[in-house]
């Protein structure tokens, strides 16, 4: 039976779904510090698809590739706890300010360095931008086929895969050859939870930067347990054209950001008492809004 080499593209995102009142600073910028950083939800759906293939085909490896600040190593650890085999953190000031295109370029250059890959799986989109662009753009950078909106891997046999896609108004079943990039929908099965044994095994998995911060002696640790080393790649670890990285490599620029200020409307304030509700309903009936 064939074993596959799978890379999961994942992103650590601020949890924009539970934004509180203190999410914005007085100057109108986002207060990232108060927002919890989480594993992007649909990237977890993607990880689950990868782990299912690993369950089915022994010898398959699943690695996570992420780009972000140092703390984004957290999601690689989270992936290890759930069954991934390793991961790489792309972190460098040179990557800062990347739009989706510069991000895709950086991910693409990194993937090219990772040897032969059979399958790249990513979440459909990240909740901090909702663009759904990075998956298809990475595919284009590699010159691979992409299959977006995947809900289920129906069959995988040698180098042929059958995928079910969930579209706006329907379902499509596609058959194609590896290698390919697929993006997974939130409607796909949820990711399995952490495994207690893996948690014990990998709780000390860290990047060198993290260990240095904690003043740990990582040299001897990594000699004994190389699997605990989460590699950090900087701009020097990938072949690159500097004009395509970070802010400079991003065709889109943010011209302005406006805090959301609501224009107050002349509204009628109503308490829950019967007479007021009845009056409102009568007004709506009279104006032919209802009835």
């Amino acid at each position, binding site marked *: 039976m064939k074993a596959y080499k799978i890379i999961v593209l994942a992103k650590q995102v*601020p949890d*924009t*779904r539970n*934004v509180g009142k203190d*999410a914005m600073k007085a100057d*109108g910028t*986002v207060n990232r510090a108060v927002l919890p950083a989480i594993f992007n939800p649909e990237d977890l759906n993607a990880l689950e698809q990868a782990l299912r293939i690993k369950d089915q085909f022994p010898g398959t490896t699943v690695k996570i590739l992420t780009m972000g600040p140092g703390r984004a190593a957290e999601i690689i650890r989270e992936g290890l706890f759930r069954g991934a085999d390793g991961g790489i953190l792309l972190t460098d000031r040179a990557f800062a300010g990347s739009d989706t295109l510069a991000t895709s370029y950086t991910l693409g250059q990194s993937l090219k360095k990772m040897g032969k890959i059979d399958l790249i799986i990513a979440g459909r989109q990240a909740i*901090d*931008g*909702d*663009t*759904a662009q990075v998956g*298809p*753009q990475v595919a*284009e*950078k590699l010159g691979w*086929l*992409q*299959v977006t*909106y995947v809900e289920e891997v129906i069959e995988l046999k040698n180098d042929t895969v*059958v995928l079910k896609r969930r579209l*706006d*108004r*329907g*379902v*499509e*079943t*596609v*058959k*194609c*050859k590896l290698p390919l990039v697929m993006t997974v929908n939130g*409607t796909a099965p949820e990711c399995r939870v952490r495994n207690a044994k893996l948690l014990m095994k990998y709780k000390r998995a860290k990047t060198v930067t993290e260990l240095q911060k904690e003043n740990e002696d990582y040299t001897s640790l990594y000699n004994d347990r190389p699997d605990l080393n989460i590699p950090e790649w900087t701009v020097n670890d990938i072949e690159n054209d500097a004009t395509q990285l970070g802010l400079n490599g*991003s*065709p*889109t*620029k*943010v*011209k302005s*950001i*406006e*805090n*959301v200020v*609501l*224009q107050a*409307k*002349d*509204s*009628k*304030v109503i*308490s*829950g008492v*019967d007479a007021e*509700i*009845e009056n*409102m309903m*009568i007004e709506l*009936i009279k104006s032919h*809004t*209802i*009835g």
Partner: protein
Amino acid sequence: MNNVFVYCEIEDGHVAEVSLELLTKGRSLANELKCDLEAIAIGNQLEGVAKQVIPYGVDTLYLADDKRLYPYQTLPHNSIVVNLFKEEQPQIALMGASSIGRDLGPRVSSALHSGLTADCTSLEIGDHFDKKADKNYKNLLYQIRPAFGGNIIATIINPDCRPQMATVREGVMKKEILDPKYKGKVVNLDVSKYVSDSDFVAEIIERHMEKSKLNIKGSPIIVSGGYGVGSKENFKLLYDLAEVLGGEVGASRAAIDAGYVEHERQIGQTGLTVRPKLYIACGISGQIQHRAGMEQSAQIIAINTDPEAPINSIADYVITGDIADIIPKMIKYYKKNTK
């Protein structure tokens, strides 16, 4: 050259609503820029397409007609659009933020190294001064969208790369026929010059497209619930009210993420955009991303336990209270006064 381009999605020989809406927007952008509006349709048996799109003010319609080009597949459609754009050098390219546009747009933008902004809620033409480079840019496309959980509205520009690309969801722009007798020319592309056989590597084995059973967009009354509804069970109240009033049930993204209702009912920037006669928002705080999908409703009732909920500021009626108390009363007094 240097025109405004719209990619027209085709389903069963019909041009998608979102594409027609974008043609209307594209026409007004082209007028402002004093350039032409061009469109491309890719598929099979496209004879009827010209009649559908030219009245929206299309000056040139490109058709790529080949039986292998329907239904949509990423690689062949991408090759045609990329190669045509290389020849025609549009300054702006618009696509629907649909499962096709969001698959194709990023691929095209990556191949052309151009910027793409997803899910825009407004598109305008404006200038930009880059202080750092001391350079003035005239007539850029402002791509406006809520960002970051709806706490901010960002205006995105692509100063240097072309085309400036944007996707827009169905229902956000208004479609309007410009002139039923508008004169536009049709260019039939020689498909073999634009695609290669290796673009046809994927095989669509099965396809079930269904007309959505729900018709939330077309409903004159929408009863919509948010996270504040509290549970799937509590949503039953909303269904009851919608049934009595003859409306449909919608939801905010938070309610969908919480699993209260199916995602087809989502209203907001990443869901449906609606303009009903009456929108009843129950337990919805009113983040900008939700408001982007409903603020053009003719009348809005907001029911919230929080008197400070942001949605209240755009509501015609603000009711502070618990939906379990308010909704049954609304049903009662509606019935009482319509009999």
